[in-house]
């Protein structure tokens, strides 16, 4: 469409560096832009962040807009939405990409409300339609039971949030050239209507879910918080973490932060042991990236056996003790 050009990536920081998702977005953004013969821009918001501009260029950005302000130090929905909208109105990007992260999930829909271009969330693939040059995306719908393919219509910008760890990160090339453009103007504090009063970090016992190479996950069939201890023992033995389905979290057997699935965490360990959970797609879509899935369920018809590599049809209480003691014996050798 006339007047709209280029790909704008909404950058994210993690511990003072470019977040992994931002490097993934620069990779796919570069591909989309090359197909259109257009530029990739990145907006970085924070304080101070100037030093990251050059790095973003090495990862493929042609232009890096840097907005530094004490009010941007941590994510603030009002301030970030304002800045993103302001930049979009100035540079008229054809495509705007976000990570499907805490920040992207909050920011992208607001920006869509403000700019009215159209947005697809939680995309698994992004491409350009060869004839219309419009953005095409696929995303899980109906809890992952189906995948939908969507194409933008005439409204711009075409926005999308991309699921994390699903495309390869951009390759770094320090000889690449680009432009670093400071975003002028201070943020007027009166646009900030909501205030962060407190941030509470949840301490996790043992290995973090996202980093774990082994996850032992329990469902409604586990029956109690007490019974989850058996899963914890197995996870500890294998140096892994425990996860859960939504009903197990709802019941309060484990903290809600352990929920795996479409509306919980997306994990891809080497080994995922699914115990007494049926394997609903909205759960499975959070662990399909696992190398080996093992299902333990007393119902032979349970969907978990459609995605698992190994399965045992039995009461988990009769399986886990033997599994734990045999593994102990094998691992001590």
């Amino acid at each position, binding site marked *: 469409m006339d007047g709209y050009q280029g790909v704008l990536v909404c950058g994210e920081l993690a511990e003072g560096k470019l977040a992994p998702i931002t490097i993934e977005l620069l990779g796919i953004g570069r591909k989309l832009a090359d197909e259109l013969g257009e530029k990739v821009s990145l907006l970085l918001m924070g304080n101070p962040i100037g030093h990251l501009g050059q790095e973003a260029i090495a990862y493929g950005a042609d232009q890096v807009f840097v907005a530094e302000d004490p009010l941007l130090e941590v994510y603030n*929905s*009002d301030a970030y939405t304002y800045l993103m909208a302001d930049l979009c109105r100035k540079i008229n990007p054809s495509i705007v990409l976000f990570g499907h992260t*805490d920040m992207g*999930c*909050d920011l992208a*829909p*607001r920006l*869509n*409300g*403000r700019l*009215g271009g159209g947005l*697809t*969330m*939680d995309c698994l693939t992004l491409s350009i339609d060869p004839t219309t040059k419009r953005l*095409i995306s696929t995303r*899980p*719908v*109906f*809890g992952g*039971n*189906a*995948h*939908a393919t*969507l194409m*933008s*219509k*005439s*409204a711009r910008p075409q926005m999308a949030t991309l699921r994390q760890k699903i495309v390869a990160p951009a390759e770094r090339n320090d000889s690449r050239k680009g432009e670093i453009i400071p975003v002028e103007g201070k943020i007027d504090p009166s646009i900030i209507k*909501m205030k*962060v*009063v*407190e*941030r*509470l*970090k949840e301490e996790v016992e043992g290995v973090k879910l996202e980093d774990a190479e082994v996850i032992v996950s329990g469902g409604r069939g586990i029956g109690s918080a007490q019974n989850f201890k058996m899963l914890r023992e197995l996870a500890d033995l294998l140096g892994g973490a425990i996860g859960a389905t939504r009903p197990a*979290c*709802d019941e309060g057997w484990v903290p809600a*932060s352990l929920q795996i699935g479409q*509306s919980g965490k997306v994990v891809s360990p080497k*080994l995922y042991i699914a115990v007494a959970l049926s394997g*609903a*797609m909205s759960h499975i879509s959070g662990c399909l990236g696992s190398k080996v899935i093992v*299902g333990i369920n007393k119902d032979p018809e349970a*969907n978990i*056996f459609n995605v*698992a*590599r*190994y*399965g*045992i*049809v039995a009461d988990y209480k*009769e*399986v886990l*003790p*033997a*599994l734990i003691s*045999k*593994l102990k014996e*094998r*691992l001590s050798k």
Partner: protein
Amino acid sequence: MNTIVCVKQVPDPEIPPAKFKIDPETKKVVPPPGVPPVISVYDERAVEAALRLKDKHKGKITVISVGAGKVSDVVRHALSMGADEGFVIEDGAFENLDSFGTATVLSKAIQKIGGYDLILCGRQAADWGAGQVGSILAEILGIPVVTFACGIEAVDKKLRVRRVVKDGFEILETPMPSLVTVSSEIGLPRLPAGMSLMLARKKQIPVWKPQDIGLDLSDLDKEKAHTEIIGLSIPTRKKECEIITGTTPAEAAIQLAEKLSQLF
């Protein structure tokens, strides 16, 4: 304290995956016969959130739903949980509305109702799960929006919202009125019971047409022009599960342990 809750009717998401069918031609889901649609999960929790606020601060809860066909059952469900009043906005033209279109219709209905301190939506619908109607609606109405709430309190004419983030929680303070989207961590919804259940059976749920809320259908045509669904498919996966059997479950477990120990 007056709260408006937006609830969507969806095909039952808890049917087993094997029963999930689509029509790739029309790009629609074919619900299994005899399984009635339900209130979307997060929306039911949004109703619960509204009720908890009402338990503490009194006030009124109004529930609305937009649909191409009859959607009053989900509103009645919310009434039977304890909400006070409900409206539905129904018109054939609402078939295939995208998020912007839905938010536009909701905004008109909400402007007609007026007098609200808080609007609640689910974090995402259980069917297409776009995850954006609430935020777009807030932008249209020009009010703040806090997403992924797992707890809401009213303190000194402000809202204190606990929201879920990757590694913990954030507590935000936002003025009234604001829109808040509710996540499942808020906890289980109460079951319909007692007086509210009886009252809900009798209550009228007025049906509004586009003209009743001052909505010009030609506005929607324009709003519709954002994205279109060009394909719908069920991802196929090769089933390759080796079921390990033994004379006892414990014996099967021992075989499984052998296989797993080779992975390390």
